[in-house]
């Protein structure tokens, strides 16, 4: 803990990932972005880096659940006839090609990539923009549970992951970006994005976060024993 301008500011990885005030936010690990039969896979995008990330997210998720960390799933969603897309958003989505029809509501592409599957009590936040804070109940859910810190993972690095993480800092959450649990379809964009992001908030490896959560879980068990 540091004290800055008379305010207590979390400092250590343990403080930044403490299960009593931390949520794991899993961004857009959906079939259209991750599965070979999904939109990216069927449109010639390189899924190799994302394929490595998905099992690591699964390990992180398991550790979060064991430690009682609040888990929130973010689900990019396209409505029929692009009803949630403004004219300016459509321009942004059509850069270079026709507007992609990915994560259509109710489609397999919108579903989460196996083996990642929300438990009944884990909230799913549907979003229509890159940041999970825009036009959603994410901030309401976080403040309802006294969450102060977000551990972020998922896809794609330079898009919805980075957008959500930046907004999280502007909405006054600590951010821990799990560097081996985010990925995208273009290594150059991934590295550029991670370089910029690393100047803005904390980065950690999943092993480090899992260790903190395992140790927190063990302390809870001792306290209860």
């Amino acid at each position, binding site marked *: 803990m540091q004290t800055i301008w008379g305010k207590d500011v979390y400092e250590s990885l343990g403080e930044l990932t403490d299960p009593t005030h931390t949520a794991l936010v899993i961004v857009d690990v959906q079939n259209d972005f991750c599965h070979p039969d999904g939109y990216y896979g069927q449109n010639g995008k390189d899924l190799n880096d994302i394929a490595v990330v998905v099992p690591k997210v699964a390990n992180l998720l398991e550790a979060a659940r064991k430690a009682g960390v609040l888990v929130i799933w973010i689900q990019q969603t396209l409505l029929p006839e692009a009803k949630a897309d403004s004219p300016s958003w459509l321009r942004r989505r059509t850069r270079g090609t026709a507007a992609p029809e990915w994560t259509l509501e109710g489609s397999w592409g919108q579903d989460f990539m196996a083996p990642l599957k929300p438990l009944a009590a884990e909230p799913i936040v549907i979003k229509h923009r890159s940041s999970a804070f825009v*036009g959603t109940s994410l901030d309401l859910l976080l403040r309802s549970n006294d969450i102060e810190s977000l551990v972020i993972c998922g896809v794609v690095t330079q898009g919805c992951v980075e957008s959500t993480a930046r907004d999280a800092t502007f909405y006054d959450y600590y951010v821990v970006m799990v560097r081996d649990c985010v990925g995208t379809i273009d290594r150059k964009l991934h590295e550029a994005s991670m370089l910029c992001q690393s100047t803005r908030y904390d980065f950690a490896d999943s092993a480090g976060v899992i260790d903190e959560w395992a140790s927190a879980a063990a302390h809870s068990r001792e306290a209860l024993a």
Partner: protein
Amino acid sequence: MRATALLLTGLQKAYSGPGSAMAAGGLDVSPLRASYPHLSKILAAARGAELPILHFRELSLADGVSDSAAWRNYRERAGSGIPISPNDPRGLEFLDDFAPEPGEFVIDRFRPSGLQDTRADVLLRSAGIRNLIIAGAETHRSVLATVLQAVGLDYLVTVPSEATASARPEMHDAALGILDAWIELLPVSEVVARLAIDGPSALIREVKNADHLG
């Protein structure tokens, strides 16, 4: 261009359906039921004019995950009874006469205003909507909260008076008085007539920028 949308709130079975949680809490829900024929007219007129229609669905997520300590306190103070949750699917459902149709939007809301912490504002802006007709229950709770937030978000708002209700008439009357200080209250018959004549552009009022901007 479609510039007007209809927003409906508080039309779930937990309010006034069979075994209503509100009624079980000791409130007389007959004033709510009295508003339903008027609401049906508004809904039919809006559908005829092909307005975008948003149905707000109040709920609390399982295990209280959408309930802050403050919100639980406010609910208790208001005597709101058991929260509407997915554990009570029947209470969560819309009343039969107000079931959403395909192409209409169901928006889950966790607090009184349907525009707060939901995708409603994104949907409305994406459709170029600047005018809202807001109706339903309760006048002094979700209707009032949604209207005031709509005002703050720069929508032009119309409320069809007989298509709103609170279980307690004195709260309904007080709320209508406050709404009248802010927005256009119209009789249902007037709203229906305008929708029939002007369709999706009905109820647009010309609002000029301040004169000093020239």
